[in-house]
């Protein structure tokens, strides 16, 4: 089986060696052949409803993509991985979906995810966990695990995801693909089901940085329906891909290299640094002294915003509705008990606790102040260096069930990724090798709105390495 990049599909469609209908059918057949083994898709969209209003000169016309089931797409079921929204049909398109639809892209289906994007292993999905194509006893990561597995297994050339604390980058790292979380506000959040509004950001899971550049150009931009979306001009990202890297300075935070990373992964990180040095990049040791507080800060801020955002699920206007309607208060409580899974319930309770009278100052306000310190660390570091690099995760894909009963150990999965969300800076994960046949990823972090730098750096790396082109064995078996 060959996995095609978006760039290759563009060329194939443009020189008419294949029609966009044939491309769509190819992926649909792969999804049908593989979804039972991977469980990456919650629903598969039919051709008629997903075809876009085609702009004839669009460079991505006819390119199909997978959409995380957190994005509204008009007329399609949008479950957010939850029983609560098992019967919810989007009445409108999310802005990023609308932007891509205008360009003639085609939605292949809606991908599986942790319930309401709360999880790092896809085990909190109401629709069963996604399996990692590299080893089906292991997690693909989360929360955008379905999108990651779909791209890794060649069931989609590219996918959209969301990243609140690492939900694009961690699954990208665990499945051997490229995952970009843009700057907070770079893409509109309108029509993207809210988890933690000051942290959520839409992004891309793709084979290559080049593909991410192609899609981001069309997704990003100001939207009057999201007052936190940025008016900053959207650059033509593809034009920066081949810029010379010589003279760029990369910071290596000592807090990411404190000895806690197993030596087998450390070896891969050192190899990739060496590869970058050959391109003329200079490395410099830096410190982000408050980064160690990222996980506790996040687990105050995110549940607080979650408890507020998820108050809307009351069973009245949409979503699951309890059949017990003896009185209104009992009806609300029962609807929410039946509709939400355990992880979501615990975060609502935690968020309610940190916001409740007597605890607000000690927890929520304190966390927002520490968040400011973490942000300052990044701003200070970027006075000295162009970007920051480090591992995306502490380990490769772990076994399903391994951490499911221990939330704190699960939360530590995001130890390297969370700080970018707290500060709002963009970050990208890219594959840098394998340990015991499982992929491992490296993260690059840039100042606000410097996505073109991230894409440029990773693209150059991917021009001289082929880690991002490795295909899981399960895909080869399909051809036999």
């Amino acid at each position, binding site marked *: 089986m060959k996995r095609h990049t978006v760039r290759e599909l563009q060329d194939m469609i443009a020189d008419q060696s294949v029609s966009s209908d044939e491309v769509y059918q190819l992926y649909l057949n792969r999804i049908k052949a593989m979804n039972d083994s991977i469980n990456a898709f919650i629903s598969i969209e039919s051709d008629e409803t997903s075809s876009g209003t085609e702009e004839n000169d669009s460079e991505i016309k006819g390119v199909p993509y997978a959409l995380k089931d957190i994005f509204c797409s008009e007329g399609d079921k949008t479950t957010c991985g939850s029983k609560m929204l098992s019967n919810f049909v989007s009445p409108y398109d999310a802005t990023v979906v609308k932007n891509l639809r205008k360009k003639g892209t085609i939605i292949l289906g809606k991908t599986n995810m942790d319930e309401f994007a709360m999880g790092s292993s896809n085990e909190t999905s109401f629709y069963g966990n996604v399996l990692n194509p590299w080893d089906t006893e292991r997690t693909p990561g989360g929360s955008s695990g379905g999108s990651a597995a779909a791209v890794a297994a060649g069931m989609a050339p590219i996918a959209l995801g969301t990243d609140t604390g690492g939900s694009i980058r961690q699954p990208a790292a665990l499945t051997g693909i490229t995952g970009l979380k843009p700057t907070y506000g770079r893409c509109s959040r309108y029509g993207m089901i809210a988890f933690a509004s000051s942290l959520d950001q839409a992004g891309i899971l793709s084979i290559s940085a080049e593909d991410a550049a192609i899609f981001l150009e069309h997704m990003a931009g100001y939207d009057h329906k999201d007052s936190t979306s940025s008016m900053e001009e959207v650059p033509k990202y593809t034009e920066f891909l081949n810029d010379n890297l010589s003279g760029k300075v990369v910071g290596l935070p000592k807090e990411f290299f404190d000895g806690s990373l197993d030596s087998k992964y450390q070896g891969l990180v050192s190899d990739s640094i060496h590869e970058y040095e050959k391109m003329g990049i200079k490395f410099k040791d830096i410190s982000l002294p408050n980064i160690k507080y990222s996980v506790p800060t996040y687990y105050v801020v995110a549940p607080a915003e979650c408890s507020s955002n998820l108050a809307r699920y009351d069973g009245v206007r949409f979503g699951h509705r309890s059949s017990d309607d003896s009185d209104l208060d009992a009806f609300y409580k029962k609807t*929410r008990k039946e509709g939400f899974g355990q992880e979501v319930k615990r975060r609502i309770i935690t968020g309610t606790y940190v916001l409740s009278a007597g605890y607000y100052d000690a927890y929520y306000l304190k966390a927002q102040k520490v968040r400011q310190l973490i942000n300052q660390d990044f701003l200070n570091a970027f006075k000295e260096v162009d970007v920051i690099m480090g591992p995306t995760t502490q380990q490769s894909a772990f076994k399903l069930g391994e951490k499911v009963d221990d939330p704190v150990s699960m939360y530590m999965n995001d130890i390297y990724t969370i700080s970018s969300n707290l500060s709002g800076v963009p970050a990208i994960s890219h594959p840098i090798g394998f340990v015991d046949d499982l992929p491992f990823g490296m993260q690059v972090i840039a100042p606000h709105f410097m996505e073109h730098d991230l894409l440029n750096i990773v693209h150059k790396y991917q021009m001289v390495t082929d880690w991002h082109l490795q295909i899981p064995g399960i895909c080869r078996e399909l051809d036999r």
Partner: protein
Amino acid sequence: MSIKKSEIEHLCNLSKLNLDEEEQSIFLSQMQSILEMIKELEGVDTGEIAPMAHPLQMSQRLREDEITEFNERDKYQKNTDFAEDGFYKVPKVID
């Protein structure tokens, strides 16, 4: 720092969420370890630091007071079987 079962019950009431006995006891121990982790923030010196509510320094934009959106009630009410004459039906709230 510890959390009591009665506090979990209070939080359930505030967040309009029923938990059964088993969930309550699981949450009690899990929240204990989450609060232990969060406790680490206590020691951080944040004396003069302003809380960060938003990643970007930007102010709220205003638009012209013109009608841009129209009422699409019927379309939105297709997401429930419990709408009638444009209203949503809820359990009886007054006797």
